[in-house]
């Protein structure tokens, strides 16, 4: 089963990359773009059939390695074919 983990920076954590992208977008004429926040997507392939078990495993992976919970939030979604 494929699982998508979206990792984003928490509110209040400086995102200099997002700031740089925003400033570049503004320079290109997209003046209405007032904020940009960046993140990352991690796609996992788990050899499990139970959705509950997959979500449980993915959550454990996030807490133990994939996410730095001091500065990042995460969202887990199962990818349906």
């Amino acid at each position: 089963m494929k699982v998508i983990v979206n990792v984003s920076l928490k509110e209040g954590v400086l995102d200099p990359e997002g700031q740089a992208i925003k400033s570049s977008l503004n320079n290109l004429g997209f003046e209405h773009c007032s904020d940009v926040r960046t993140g990352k997507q991690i796609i996992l392939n788990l050899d499990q059939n139970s959705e509950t078990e997959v979500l449980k495993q993915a959550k454990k992976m996030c807490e133990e390695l994939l996410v730095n919970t001091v500065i990042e939030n995460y969202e887990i979604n199962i990818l349906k074919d």
Partner: protein
Amino acid sequence: MRSGVVIFPGSNCDRDMIVAIRKITGKTPIKIWHKEYDIPNLDLIVIPGGFTFGDYLRCGALAARSPVITSIKNHISRGGAVLGVCNGFQILIEAKILPGSLIRNKKLLFTCRETTLEVQSCIENPFLSGLKIGECLKIPVAHNEGNYFAPEDLLKQLKEEGRIALKYIKQNDNEKNYNPNGSTEDIAGILSNNGKVLGMMPHPERAINNLQGGTDGLKFLTNCVEQIIG
């Protein structure tokens, strides 16, 4: 003094650190490969700088899950001292041995230059105790993710417990870029709650000889060694 330098795939300041410690103690620190579970009893373990595991996922994240981290935690629980420099500091944070986070430099630039550090008033520790509070040290930095971030409650706790060890400081009122990474309150290094673990972004091993531009790193490391030997 019995010391060891931890080496991960991608560590690149290990040799410089070994040279620096040997210059001070006359003894070569042991090299500790990251896969080792059993390490001998040591007085000081240094986690050197580098780009462990290519900085993949987050700087220090993969190194912090290596077997050697368990041994380092045991060493700390025995009262042993640990110094983490640059990527070593990032690894200590990722291993949750030190709190907070090190995020991208505010200006998105890899910064490699000399900085001036001020010794802070802090809890008893074997790294700074022989130096004067307010003393300045010129030690270079070289990093892309050295912007120390702590949520407000943690920052308050660190201040109350005297765990902010080193700060970047202005040399004159007009100096604007004295903080190389935009860290909260100009923090350059923090201590663990027992004072035995110090994480710092600047590289003392890169300032041990006048040919490198200064010897304040040697002064800093010599003091660490003297304090640890007692």
